[in-house]
């Protein structure tokens, strides 16, 4: 069998071979254009060409409405708040888990890993109902508290903390996996060398481990934030009716209020925020490549 690298294809018979490569790339590129780029452009156009009695005209009215409407703004801010809190909690929860998994070589670690990855295989809808059965009114926790004579808990169900708890749980696996792969790049010898020159646990974490995985942290957080910002199922089922996160908000504007243009505006604004987070991700990947 002979192996041909892309370079060779280019240099040996450029005229005859090159079109095949382009054809291979063409399919995904066309799909991306058709299913992603075009809807985005069309959505932006839809929101900027507003129907008037004389036909449609260019206007930024829908955006002006969004950014002056108190309810829309409070929905945006609850979304940002939820995303931010989730990101912080995810780091606080997942970093210790990942560190434990990386540096422990006991049998328990295997089970912890299994548990940490498990939510990945649970659909969010099932996760939501499990949440309600455990933490909701008259859920397992309430029943247990009741059995030992403690007062009812103030359930996070239908408060902003409901989606936070659900989303954090839902995002633990991916975050742990990304952090773990970052920690895989920190060699045991580099860590032992640090201990050898006198680094205690904290100095080790702060000066040796964190700088090496800062990129992975950024990637993990970008991934989580992108998903959480536009999440639908968990906020829809677990969250309060008002204010609501952007996902359920769009859906309600579209389905219940029959206002597609406003819904699309909300979508474009959500997309705008996600692009910013996306840029963080792209930047850190690029930095990684350069290094």
């Amino acid at each position: 069998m002979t192996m041909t690298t892309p370079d060779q294809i280019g240099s040996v018979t450029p005229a005859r071979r090159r079109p095949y490569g382009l054809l291979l790339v063409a399919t995904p590129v066309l799909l991306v254009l058709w299913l992603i780029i075009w809807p985005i452009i069309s959505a932006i156009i839809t929101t900027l060409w507003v129907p008037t009695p004389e036909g449609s005209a260019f206007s930024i009215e829908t955006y002006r409405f969004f950014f002056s409407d108190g309810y829309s703004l409070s929905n945006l801010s609850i979304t940002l708040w939820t995303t931010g809190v989730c990101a912080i909690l995810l780091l606080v929860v997942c970093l210790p888990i990942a560190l434990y998994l990386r540096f422990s070589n006991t049998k328990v670690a295997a089970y912890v890993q299994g548990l940490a990855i498990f939510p990945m295989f649970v659909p969010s809808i099932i996760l939501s109902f499990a949440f309600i059965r455990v933490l909701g009114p008259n859920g397992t926790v309430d029943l247990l508290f009741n059995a030992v004579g403690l007062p009812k808990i103030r359930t996070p169900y239908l408060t902003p903390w409901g989606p936070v708890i659900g989303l954090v749980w839902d995002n633990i696996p991916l975050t742990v996996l990304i952090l773990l792969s970052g920690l895989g790049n920190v060699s045991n010898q580099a860590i032992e060398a640090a201990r050898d020159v006198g680094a205690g646990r904290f100095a080790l974490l702060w000066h040796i481990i964190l700088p090496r995985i800062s990129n992975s942290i950024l990637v993990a957080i970008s991934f989580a934030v992108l998903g959480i910002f536009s999440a639908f199922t968990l906020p829809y089922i677990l969250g309060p009716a008002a204010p609501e996160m952007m996902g359920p908000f769009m859906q309600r504007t579209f389905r219940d209020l029959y206002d597609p243009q406003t819904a699309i505006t909300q979508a474009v604004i959500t997309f705008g925020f996600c692009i910013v987070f996306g840029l963080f991700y792209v930047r850190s990947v690029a930095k990684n490549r350069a290094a």
Partner: protein
Amino acid sequence: MSVLSIKDVSKIFPNGNVRAVDSFSLDVADGELVCLLGPSGSGKSTLLRMVGGFETPTSGVMTIDGEDITRLPPEKRPTGMVFQSHALWTHMNVFKNLAFGLKLRKVSPDEIKRRVEGVLELVGLGGYGTRGVGQLSGGQQQRVALARSLVLEPKILLLDEPFASLDQHLRERLREEVRDIQQRLKITTLFVTHGQDEALSMADRIVVMRDGRTEQIDRPDVVYREPQTPFVAGFIGTMNLVEGTVSNGIFSRAGYSTPLPVSDGPATLAIRPEALDLAAAEDGGQGKVHRVTDYGTHGLVDLDLRDNTRIKAMVSHPDLFKAGQGVTLKPRAIAAYRDNALIHRA
């Protein structure tokens, strides 16, 4: 006065159930360089890592300057370790790699600068402070690793096959440099290697290890000339080991016999190739030449005893021998072992 003292130290890994290190004892004197030499899996790294604090002994005691360090974590020990590779912190430049330990010790910035530059000079990397460690060659990286340990002025320097990933030429050069630096600083050093030439050329004393135990502890020349066990004899340098039986003061094996004044029983005869003369024999002799290799300065003759036991002899005139020829063996020096101990030397 011994700086490092290891007494009856054993290590059993919980999962493996092997005694990686088995009742090991060693005293290392101030400024001495001791090489731990042994085949793969003989427990050298495990022993060194116990001295560095990266493994805890299952039993036994280790002291440095009389102070018990057996249970101290690595960060509290006055030891400095140079790892085989991949131990530099790639997110820091050379200067920061060296300065890190000093910063943790709250040394003043001026003092840090002075010491780091001094040590970089010492390992031949003066002016490399601002380089990223990724921009250095393998040999330079290992020098940085050495400098990083030296800058903290450890009481004991530990090196675990620090040159194993380098090519032969570089390895020889670094070996000499490390030896020079070690003698200049008079720093007590434990050096792990499984290369006998490395051990022979660097060490004040060699510890030959096998299956976690000590086979012999001696000066390099003594280990070479007077190996105490057949294992050491076979491991250091080239050695012909011939198993046979002794009866009435004569050792014999497949048509070869030689006087050996020991009691009757089995014995292993050890003859260095350079201590074995050959004489052409008319009538088949004791062995038959298999191959002659001419190295210019000397020649090497491979010969077979009658039961095809292969023996090597170094000769000064290889052109006197040719394949298929019968020879008689005339050893100038022999040693004999029985039950893993030396029973005779002549």
